[in-house]
């Protein structure tokens, strides 16, 4: 019931779209999309994406992602995936704007790209054409047609659909595996996306079973033409080529083209290499593998790199693995290698002669999507704090605001924010080796922490700087003034009546206790002299010690002046020392931390 309602709605909406075709429909569909009128946006966007009526530009890409968004909103997830796969297969540059589209579209687009990368097709054997419907019909099936050829070709579509050249089949929209074959020719396997109401024509030029394979490596990269037909950017791996003589041309943006003629034998593999610069890592095993890649042995080189335990530690090895995988049309593997490369070394910039424009675009896109940050500085350098600043290079993958924190090594120190720098790709921060109060940083270790934060994640990286002051001759601070330099700030005041009463009372009590015990008849005295002596002593001691303390303001002022003068002299010394410290060269040894 719900499906029928959707079909009726889409049919009504389609009727309104009949008047608009091509990019006009795309613009109209965009308007409806922006108004959240998804029912009407769907047929308009579908009609407007006809690749035959305009360039596959940014508007076209935005149209695909909006159509996918609409379909996902309408719970047509499978159809959204089919459209995204179709766009990814049709346009290698197709990508969705991950900053704008909903996460569900981003996930679907990534899955579509991975699917297409894992189901490559040989563009020289199979070409596809599309017959776009004048009006979009939601319930319409997709049509696949096998173009007639001068040889008796047959195709198997999916599991159970067979057809001959010139025949067609109507099938539900989706992705289908197809195998096209003919007696005496190499069969070809391909994946095709059928869109609702769209006729997909497969034009197949099968190669004879005796065809050879061509491998071409060039550095700097070039565009390869075989018999005047553009094959693509180098490297080229496993390009099928018929037996016989062929003319090859390598063209570059600058410099003359390079022409040669080859004669291909039956089932012969021909490997051609034009290498002007070779990579080395210093590890013999890895270098041997890189030499194999330079010789056009892509499969062996990729296998050897993957088997090597330490290739992941070398950016150049990861870059070469990506390049070779790309040439083998293992695009998903190539992108995985590029992601590892960006994460391993955010500073790595592929040499301009290594990555062809397609691979470079993929690298830039992956770098732009990957939240990663790296910081580095010279491992051993000498700077003068009041004259120089220590340059710290910062590299990020995904652009963002980098927050830099200073962490002193002293126990209990807290991070202080040094700067917030917007970094697009690379930036340099000049670190002043002074504290906020202008004094020189103390010798020892300090940490510089870089952090870039995005919604849902982020990255951080740290540098540890070991500062060693090379030489310094500072004036010693003054020793504290001796206590005898100060005057007493309090003195005993006159005794109050209460103090006198307490002292007399205490002395009397001390006297009376033994006096009571005393037998006058025996000792001859009612109060023994010794008891009197102790009692009076206690009274006098209590009286003298409990007199109130009076502050002598004159002495307080005198002492304060003494202290202020001492501190002033020390401040002057400290200022002179600080100037000397800031002018003293500091050796900085850096090491990176995670």
């Amino acid at each position, binding site marked *: 019931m719900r499906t029928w309602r959707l079909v009726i709605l889409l049919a009504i909406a389609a009727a309104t779209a009949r008047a608009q075709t091509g990019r006009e429909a795309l613009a109209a569909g965009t308007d409806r999309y922006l108004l959240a009128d998804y029912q009407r946006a769907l047929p308009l966007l579908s009609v407007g994406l006809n690749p035959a009526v305009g360039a596959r530009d940014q508007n076209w890409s935005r149209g695909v992602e909006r159509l996918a968004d609409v379909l996902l909103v309408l719970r047509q997830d499978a159809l959204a995936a089919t459209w995204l796969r179709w766009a990814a297969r049709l346009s290698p540059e197709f990508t969705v704007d991950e900053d704008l589209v909903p996460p569900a579209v981003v996930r679907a687009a990534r899955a579509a790209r991975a699917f297409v990368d894992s189901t490559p097709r040989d563009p020289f054997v199979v070409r596809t054409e599309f017959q776009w419907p004048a009006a979009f019909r939601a319930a319409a099936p997709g049509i696949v047609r096998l173009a007639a050829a001068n040889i008796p070709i047959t195709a198997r579509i999916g599991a159970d659909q067979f057809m001959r050249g010139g025949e067609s089949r109507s099938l539900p929209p989706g992705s289908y595996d197809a195998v096209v074959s003919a007696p005496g020719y190499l069969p070809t396997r391909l994946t095709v996306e059928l869109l609702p109401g769209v006729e997909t024509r497969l034009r197949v030029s099968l190669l004879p079973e005796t065809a050879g394979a061509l491998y071409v490596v060039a550095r700097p990269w070039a565009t390869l033409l075989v018999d005047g037909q553009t094959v693509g950017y180098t490297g080229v791996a496993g390009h099928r080529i018929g037996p016989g003589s062929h003319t090859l041309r390598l063209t570059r943006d600058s410099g003359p083209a390079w022409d040669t003629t080859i004669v291909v034998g039956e089932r012969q593999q021909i490997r051609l290499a034009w290498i002007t610069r070779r990579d080395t890592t210093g590890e013999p095993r890895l270098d041997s593998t890189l030499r194999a890649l330079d010789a056009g042995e892509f499969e062996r080189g990729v296998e050897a790199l993957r088997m090597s335990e330490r290739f992941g530690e070398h950016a150049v090895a990861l870059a070469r693995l990506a390049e070779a995988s790309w040439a083998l049309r293992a695009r998903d593997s190539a992108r995985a290698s590029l992601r590892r490369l960006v994460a391993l070394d955010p500073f790595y910039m592929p040499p301009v002669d290594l990555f062809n424009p397609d691979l470079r675009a993929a690298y830039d896109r992956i770098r732009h999507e990957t939240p990663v940050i790296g910081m580095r500085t010279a491992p051993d350098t000498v700077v003068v704090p009041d004259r120089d600043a220590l340059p710290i290079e910062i590299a990020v993958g995904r652009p963002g605001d980098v927050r830099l924190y200073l962490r002193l090594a002293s126990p209990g120190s807290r991070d202080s924010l040094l700067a917030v720098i917007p970094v697009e790709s690379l930036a340099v921060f000049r670190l002043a080796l002074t504290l906020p109060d202008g004094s020189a940083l103390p010798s020892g270790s300090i940490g510089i922490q870089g952090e870039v934060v995005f919604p849902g994640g982020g990255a951080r990286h740290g540098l540890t700087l070991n500062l060693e002051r090379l030489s310094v001759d500072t004036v010693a601070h003054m020793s504290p003034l001796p206590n005898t330099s100060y005057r007493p700030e309090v003195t005993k005041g006159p005794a109050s009546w209460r103090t006198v009463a307490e002292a007399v009372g205490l002395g009397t009590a*001390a006297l009376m206790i*033994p006096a009571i*015990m005393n037998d006058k008849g*025996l000792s001859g005295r009612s109060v*023994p002299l010794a008891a009197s002596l*102790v009692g009076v*002593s206690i009274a006098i001691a209590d009286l003298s010690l409990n007199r109130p303390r009076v502050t002598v303001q004159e002495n307080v002022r005198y002492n304060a002046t003494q202290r202020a003068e001492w501190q002033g002299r020390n401040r002057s010394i400290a200022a002179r020392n600080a100037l000397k410290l800031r002018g003293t060269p500091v050796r900085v040894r850096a090491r990176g931390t995670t």
Partner: protein
Amino acid sequence: MNAARRLWQAALLLAAGVAPAALAGQAVSGRVVVGFPKSSLRVGGTRERVDGVWAGAAVGFHIASWTFSASGTRGTLSPSATSGVLERDVGEISAGGRYEPRPWLAVDGRFIARAFSSAAGRQRWNMAAIGVIGSRDLGTPVVRASASLAYLQVLSGSEQALPDFGLGSDVSLAVAPPRFPLAFSLGYRVERFQFPQSAGRSEQFETLTLSVGLRVRRLDGRWVLGGRAE
């Protein structure tokens, strides 16, 4: 022999149990004492008074709120005038313990043996004393005044007629200057003994005492000089 060994083992066990807990608050003190004793006696209608000087020493061991001390003094007493009373030697030893439940209050228990010896004979009293001591700082912990009252029970003696009991009192003033190892005190002690009515006798012993002491305290794991002597 076996009893002595068991006693020795018990003492070791006791020391092992007490020492770890008490290490932080222990102190040892020693004092030199000079006193001016005076003994007054009345038998029937006859009264005799002798006074003189004695000197001696005292040692103390302080653990937390407990103080154990022992002292010994010896001197000579002479009559004040030609009264026919014989000159005599006097000596006293005492040992006891003190517990301070509060800084201003202490309870003291002590055994005292005091003897007089003259050409006419020898007299010795063995006494047990128990008393309370109150004390107070006089404006500063450096100077402290104290007073005590004690009950004395004569346990045994060399005479036929022994007192039923005695009462004693002591007042003193102690000074322990900071950053100075010595401490000083001035005290007066009086003891009055009550005899049976039939004995027709009363007796009083008093002494003015000056002492100089040295105290060693356990502070932060080290023995340091200074502080008030007990």
